[in-house]
């Protein structure tokens, strides 16, 4: 039976949208497959890693009977990607195999029955539904997502806190050493909701959302969340855990204020980073009236020193940081100027944007 006959891109784009979450190695072999399902004129592609599921639809062209199969996501994607751009592709399935035809090329792939594919069905009961704009949501994700932990044993840090309450959409991410916080006005439900999105879900959303102001619908159940945008439906489990209280971590009144231009600070940090010790990545910030020095030394005792002129006339300070954490905020936040607030060598550093209360980035120091 014929599943689809369409130009290569009409099939490749929705496939790439869903195939990003397919894990290379999975204990459940069928999860390395993608579901290809035809219903009427629509063709649905669906992939899952058992935590996240992405569904994408496209028009299938010819009217045929309904059918569904699963086939290796990676192989199908590799085949389509390497075919010429404008060639017409047909997918044809029998009981055991899927045949891909395009021009003079022909591939037969092994299939597994679609009814064996484990699907996420959305949560129990009525979800809370929130309407957002894709570009706003995406840019807010970009301001915090880099601070998420990766494979930390504190599983709740391997994700991002999203709070929709009191007219604000707040996002917070931390790996225990630094924390990024961002808040935007939004329409919020009553009562508000607060959930932790898994790391992979956040990264996938950031990848799939477009820069336009097209709508984004978010449906939240107690243990699941669903995002609907473009032709895509992304369903994800939520992390069940207690996210640290970010309000206690953001310092309210550090006395030392430095106004820094990214154009100066970022390249200076990048140069100093060259001579930090591998794995340690320590850089010292030495503050004196009118001057901020960046010092680093590596395992071969090679040293770097950078000096920035700053409008500062308070007490001196010598404090160490992991240079990666400092560079991170400068590369991910699109702003010309930053305010840096410090207290003493044992206290955190706070980065904010001048005249903007919505973004905060806290870094803990490192004893070098």
């Amino acid at each position: 039976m014929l599943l689809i006959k369409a130009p290569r891109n009409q099939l490749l784009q929705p496939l790439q949208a869903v195939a990003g979450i397919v894990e290379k190695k999975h204990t459940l072999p069928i999860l390395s497959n993608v579901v290809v399902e035809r219903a009427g004129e629509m063709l649905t592609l669906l992939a899952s890693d058992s935590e996240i599921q992405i569904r994408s639809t496209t028009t299938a062209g010819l009217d045929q009977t309904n059918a569904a199969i699963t086939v290796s996501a990676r192989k199908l994607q590799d085949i389509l990607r390497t075919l010429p751009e404008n060639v017409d592709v047909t997918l044809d399935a029998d009981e055991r195999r899927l045949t891909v035809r395009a021009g003079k090329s022909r591939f037969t792939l092994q299939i597994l029955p679609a009814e064996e594919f484990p699907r996420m069905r959305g949560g129990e009961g009525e979800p809370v539904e929130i309407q957002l704009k894709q570009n706003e949501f995406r840019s807010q994700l970009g301001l915090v997502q880099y601070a998420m932990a990766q494979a930390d044993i504190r599983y709740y840090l391997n994700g991002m806190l999203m709070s929709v309450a009191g007219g604000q959409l707040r996002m917070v991410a931390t790996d225990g050493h630094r924390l990024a916080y961002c808040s935007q006005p939004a329409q919020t439900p009553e009562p508000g909701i607060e959930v932790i999105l898994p790391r992979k879900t956040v990264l996938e959303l950031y990848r799939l959302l477009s820069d336009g102001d097209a709508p984004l619908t978010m449906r939240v159940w107690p243990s699941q969340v669903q995002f609907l945008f473009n032709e895509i439906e992304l369903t994800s489990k939520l992390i069940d855990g207690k996210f640290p209280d970010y309000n206690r971590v953001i310092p309210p009144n550090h006395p030392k204020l430095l106004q820094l231009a990214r154009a100066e600070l970022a390249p200076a940090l990048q140069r100093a980073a060259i001579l930090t010790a591998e794995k340690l990545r320590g850089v010292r910030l030495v503050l004196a009236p009118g001057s901020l020095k960046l010092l680093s030394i590596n395992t071969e005792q090679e040293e770097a020193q950078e000096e920035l002129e700053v409008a500062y006339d308070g007490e001196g300070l010598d404090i160490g940081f992991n240079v990666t954490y400092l560079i991170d905020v400068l590369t991910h936040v699109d702003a010309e100027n930053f305010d840096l607030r410090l207290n003493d060598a044992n206290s955190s550093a706070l980065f904010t944007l001048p005249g903007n209360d919505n973004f905060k980035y806290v870094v803990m120091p490192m004893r070098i």
Partner: protein
Amino acid sequence: MPAIQVLPDLLISQIAAGEVVERPASVLKEVLENALDAGASTVEVALDEGGVRRLRVADDGCGIARDDLPLALARHATSKITSLEDLEGVRSMGFRGEALAAIASVARLTLTSRIAEANEAWRISVPGGELAPAALARGTVVDVEDLYYATPARRKFLKSEPTEYGHCEDVFRRIALARPQVKLQLTRNGRIVHRWPGAAAAQRVAQVLGEEFTGAARALEVQAGPVALSGFVALPAYSRASRDAQYFFVNGRFVRDKLLTHAVREAYADILHEARHPAYVLALTLDPRAVDVNVHPAKIEVRFRDARGIHQFVYHALERVLAEPLAGAASAAAAPAAFHLPPPGAAPAQPRFQRELAVSEGGVTQAAQRYFDAFALPRTGTAPTLAPVTGFAPAALPAAGAALPLRPGAAAAAGAEQSEAEAAVPPLGYALAQLAGVYVLAQNRAGLVLVDMHAAHERILYERLKAVVEGMPAAQKLLIPAVVAVSARELATAEEHAATLDRLGFEVAPVGPQELALRSVPQLLVRAHLPDLLRALLEDLAEQPASRVIETRRNELLATMACHGAVRANRQLAPAEMNALLRDMEACERADQCNHGRPTWVQLSMAELDRLFMRGR
């Protein structure tokens, strides 16, 4: 309700015997130690059926006076100590006065003895206990027959004859190593198995453990104030699959002490594969008052007054000997200076012994002397009937040194009379070529040197990384303190060792009766499982006065870094690069083994090469 009664004497002895006389080997140990305490210079042991049917020990020691014989078999009767002060500074092997009584309660025991002043020997036998005249030139003969005849239940727990004999032989070997100057003979079922003449330590070690061991071992002799450590440690190439070649003596007493074993294991940690066990014969000598030997029924464990200091001392002494690069052994004059360099940045962690630590480079001869001295303990007047140990012939020592097969490098050092032209050739010689992109071939004085270049380079990088990181104990502060559930004991350990933890990068504070907040962690280990790491560290700190958990974990990481940084196989090296590698190896500590304990280089001497071609036959 049964009434409480005082137990009969025999039963008390039999209960005590359960602890003291666990198996024939423990009988042998007790009786042999008595012989040594009596100052014997010759001891003959005869075992029938693994010591169960008959176990006979004859010595030429001071003997027991006729009137003391019945007392010798009584419980809590001894000539070795007389007061609590004596107990606190025990110099003899035994002191409890219960061994013979315990043995007599479970076996037929005959004690025959003659003191030097007496004209005749006397014998006492149990059961019975009648004194009778006997024939004996001097010393004491202890004859134990039908072990456990009185407690048949015990007999059922005995293993086969070969097993029980094996245990007895172990005891015999330990005594032999502890007292090299004593002439020893072991007879099994009427056949002589071992006959070891009194010898210097090096010879005795070769007799007991074989030339293979002494060939692979480095002599060691370190003194720090009243504490001294001497003996032989085998290089990792001679490591064993079991712990069968581990002999540690404290003041001449064989011990299997957790603290000491741990210190040794730590010293080998960096150069020995986990599954392998080091081989060593080590003697620790210290003031008897600084160690309590009365903590274990078989005295196999001891307590040190300054446990932390002893651990550090043993660890550092061994670590230095093992770290000594092959080149160091050959150019001994330059090596000692390097030995005194404290690790950078580790100043607060230094044990108090380290400042006094001096490694002697005297080679085997001095070490043998030291080792010997360690056992020839001066005796004080607690046992006036004991003669001082004699029989030590200084003239035997140089011969001992010469007899011991040495590594080529060490031999050169001991000889020390090389011509200047020869001395100019570095120990690993000069590179000739590269083989298959894997091995570097070099020529040195002895012949051909083959170097595994990746393994060697890996070790060099690893040692460099370690040196640098030790000076940079970076710690990352945590935004949210990690709360770790701990036991009350772990909490107490954390508080007690707060300063040590802080130095390692762990800032901890108790936040509840069973909870610790972790405020900072070592930067190199930020990706580790923090609660597990902290608990492992606390457990180790509680157990061992000087924990090295962090170093170990950190070194694992550095080893990985070194592995990735080292030259890969199939990289063509220029002759200058190969020579630079050889010079780096000579200067690098532990360069003989790669990070996994495999050798980094081998020597093929001219003689070995000649043999391949059947030359000079």
